């Protein structure tokens, strides 16, 4: 087969599983290395470049990087990537003098941002340093979006949130709190050069079954959490049922425990393997003795004398029908007594403030038509991002959208084509220091994943705002960093140097190399000592080797980046090289013209 095209920036990027999986492509192994060196400020700033909110995300990120982490394929658990991010944030010094500088003289372009959630904040973070005048409208009395109104303080303390939001607002954003935009049409008439809509997915799904509207003790999860966050609500009945088993349900049940709930049950329609909540959120809830009840489907609310007394469920059992499809049948019905019910079965988008006749098209599910690359709507100059763009996701996706939307807004305002964007880049630099020295910690460390200490069960319920996780201290962090396999230190192969001595093949501790006769990919995958059957991971194939015309194969799946192949190669045909993935931001686009540098020079 053809030689693997390693000049494609995506090839080596994909090898860095965590970075590839992160929507904002945070350079995870590099920041872990900085933490290992005690360079917490540098680690924080590197994080901030891509994910903007390291302190927040180090606590509550959905962490798509962790299931992707190579360590999880090599020996059980992934590196605690997210918790290490928090270490960088917790142990950093004052970094304010390292934040992007904002020119006093503006560039003359005005941008309106609707909503003060993480999506809008990211756009502001990227555009303020370029001299844009930014006006941010927020209906609530405080910025932050769902991070403030829905994510409970015992997971994300207020001061962490405030500090990182302030870094952005202090760049000179004109934040208008308590200002709900009622008409996009009217806003557009105010002559902004661009508008960004980061209004999220604000509507909690309802459950219209008998009894729903007969009691005031039935709550919509996200609205209920918001009331708690703003202090409008500080108590709940002793017996609480949460309907749904996603992450919102986990926050609802744990909040209920802190407001007086004694017997809190999460009611799931299906079995555990279908739960939407992340494994770690389930663990945390169960640690707090929340009962998770499987295979119960709600039928009706039960009331007595106008008072909610319980809820009726069908107990289900699942089976496969003749065609192998999963089906359910009711075994019987049960009534579970309760004082309150919280519905946590999902969120919908809603855009009541967007008129349907202003050239902004809506498509399926009554969602605006938004371009996946530029984040522009069908009305030029109006952009979307975060949960508002394609439905509810999470913070890190909202940040990734924000970066891309900021590029588009910049290019739109400068009269450039928003589709001609800088491509991602990849640079490689050797990590060879001397004959047997590599400038990274390449020894494989068999340690198990370090456990994050938690506040005692008794203590944590004392107050709603007590943060449960204590985070790693410097010592635990020092242990955990060594578990990182340095996937960004790439094995780079030079076909013409190889003398086919087999040294690399023999030494590889995970048998992922082989020199074999050429063939089709599926054949080559079987020619490794341990066949390369994880098709989601690429197979590297060299060109024909000089002496025999055979090819060098490498299964990227479980390479531990130990560098032994390079260490053992007599001709340096293998080398260990650090990959730097460049994901262009608005500043990079601005750099092309140099305009904003002039602005900055002017102060």
């Amino acid at each position: 087969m053809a030689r693997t095209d390693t000049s494609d920036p995506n090839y080596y990027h994909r090898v860095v599983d965590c970075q590839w999986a992160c929507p904002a492509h945070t350079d995870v192994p590099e920041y872990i290395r900085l933490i290992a060196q005690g360079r917490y400020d540098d680690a924080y700033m590197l994080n901030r470049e891509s994910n903007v909110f390291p302190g927040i995300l180090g606590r509550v990120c959905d962490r798509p990087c962790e299931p992707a982490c190579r360590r999880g394929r090599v020996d059980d658990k992934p590196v605690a990537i997210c918790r290490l991010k928090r270490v960088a944030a917790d142990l950093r010094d004052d970094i304010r003098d390292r934040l992007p500088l904002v020119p006093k003289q503006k560039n003359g372009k005005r941008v309106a941002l609707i909503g003060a959630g993480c999506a809008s904040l990211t756009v502001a973070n990227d555009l303020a340093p370029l001299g844009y005048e930014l006006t941010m409208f927020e209906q609530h009395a405080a910025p932050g979006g769902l991070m403030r109104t829905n994510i409970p303080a015992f997971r994300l303390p207020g001061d962490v949130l405030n500090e990182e939001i302030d870094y952005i607002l202090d760049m000179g954003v004109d934040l208008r709190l308590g200002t709900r935009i009622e008409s996009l049409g009217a806003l557009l008439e105010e002559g902004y050069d661009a508008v960004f809509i980061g209004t999220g997915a604000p509507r909690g799904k309802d459950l219209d079954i008998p009894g729903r509207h007969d009691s005031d003790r039935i709550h919509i999860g996200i609205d209920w959490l918001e009331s708690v966050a703003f202090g409008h609500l500080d108590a709940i009945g002793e017996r609480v049922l949460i309907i749904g088993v996603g992450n919102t349900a986990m926050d609802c049940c744990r909040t209920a425990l802190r407001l007086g709930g004694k017997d809190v049950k999460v009611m799931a329609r299906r079995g555990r393997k279908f739960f939407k909540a992340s494994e770690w959120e389930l663990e945390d809830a169960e640690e707090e003795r929340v009962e998770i009840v499987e295979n119960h489907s709600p039928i009706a609310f039960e009331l007595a004398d106008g008072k909610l007394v319980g809820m009726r469920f069908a107990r289900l059992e699942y089976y496969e029908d003749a065609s192998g499809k999963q089906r359910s049948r009711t075994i019987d019905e049960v009534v579970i007594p309760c004082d309150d019910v919280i519905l946590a079965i999902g969120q919908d988008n809603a855009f009541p403030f967007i008129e349907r006749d202003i050239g902004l098209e809506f498509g399926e599910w009554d969602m605006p038509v938004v371009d996946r690359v530029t984040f522009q709507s069908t009305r030029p100059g109006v952009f979307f991002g975060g949960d508002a763009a394609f439905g509810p996701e999470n913070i890190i996706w909202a940040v990734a959208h924000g970066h891309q939307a900021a590029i588009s807004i910049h290019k739109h305002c400068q009269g450039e084509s928003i589709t001609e964007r800088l491509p991602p880049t990849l640079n490689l630099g050797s990590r060879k220091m001397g004959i047997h020295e590599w400038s990274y910690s390449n020894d494989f460390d068999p340690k198990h994943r370090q456990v994050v200490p938690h506040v005692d069960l008794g203590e944590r319920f004392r107050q709603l705002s007590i943060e449960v996780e204590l985070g790693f201290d410097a010592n635990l962090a020092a242990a955990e960093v060594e578990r990182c396999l340095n996937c960004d230190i790439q094995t780079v192969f030079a076909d013409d140097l190889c003398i086919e001595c087999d040294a690399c093949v023999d030494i590889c501790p995970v048998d992922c190399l082989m020199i074999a006769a050429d063939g089709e990919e599926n054949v080559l995958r079987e020619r490794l000592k341990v066949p390369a059957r994880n098709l989601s991971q690429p197979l590297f194939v060299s060109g024909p080797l000089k002496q025999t015309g055979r090819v060098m194969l490498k299964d990227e799946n479980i390479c531990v980046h130990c560098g032994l192949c390079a260490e053992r190669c007599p001709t340096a045909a293998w080398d260990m090289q650090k990959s730097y993935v460049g994901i262009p931001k608005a500043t990079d686009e601005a750099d092309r013209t140099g305009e904003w540098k002039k602005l900055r020079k002017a102060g």
Partner: protein
Amino acid sequence: MSFIRKPLILHADLPRNGVGLTLRDYEGGMSTLCAGCGHDSVSSAIVQACWELDIEPHRVVKMSGIGCSSKTPAYFLRGAHGMNSVHGRMPAVATGAMGANRRLYCIGVSGDGDSLSIGFGQFAHAVRRNLDMLYLIENNGVYGLTKGQFSASADVGSKAKRGEVNRLRPIDPVLTAITLGGTFVARSFSGDKAQLVPLIQAGLRHRGFALIDIISPCVTFNDHEGSTKSYAYTRKSSREAVHADFVPAAEEITVDYPAGDARMVTMHDGSHIVLRKTADDYDPTDRLAAMEHVESRHAAGEIATGLLYLEESEDDQDMHGTAGTVEEPLVELPFESLNPGAAALAEYQRRLR
């Protein structure tokens, strides 16, 4: 050499053999040889061969003399027994070990210097005695350990790294072994595991002395232009006379060989060697033809490889048969029979008077 120890990583996909072990369990300590040395590849071939044959490492004795090659038993089968003997004296020590316990597998690793110079006499008699062992010569044409002097296997005209030309005739261990009555004589290349691994397996199962002369390039002192033991030269010049596949007794022969293309040799333990014909129409059971083939290839500037000579007989032709060693390992014999006492000794001495 490298200074990084190969880490032990047991990943889920790592296959296990019939005795529940992974390849990792057959490896040894960190090699101190030069990066790219052929000898490390031979160690890896031994690891693979033993793992595939389900040989438990503690059933193996590894023996060696002195040289880079002779250091390698430290780098494979960490669970095996062994002895790193004096230069060129490994056959004597191996003879003693096998006499004491004939149920073990014996792997001797030597070099061209160790076997063809200082140890030539020992080597010759081990072949002649048909000692039951697998004897590997990791042949690089130089004394690697002492910094690259020509060895007795260097070809006439072969150039040293600094340019001197060798003018002495080489000793060919293959021809020597055939002449001395060797019963399993092969040549292979460290860079060709497809050929080497089955040869090691067959050699381990052969009853009697199995010699494999393995061209194993010295990357540091003998891998240059003008050397006849370099990776490039060996690849260019080697000609496989016959390809041998090894099929253990318990396994069915699953590969379908086209009629007339393969020949099967049954070994004493019921295993098979399947000999696949190559262009030369080679018969490895014909001693004279074998010697003629090796000589004529050499004259043509080629290296004859593969299983070059095989004599698989039913009789007890090996050392145990001719010397009448006991079947049971000495450690398992009761004390009374190992040491029949002073009276028995006196009687024995009386008979000799």
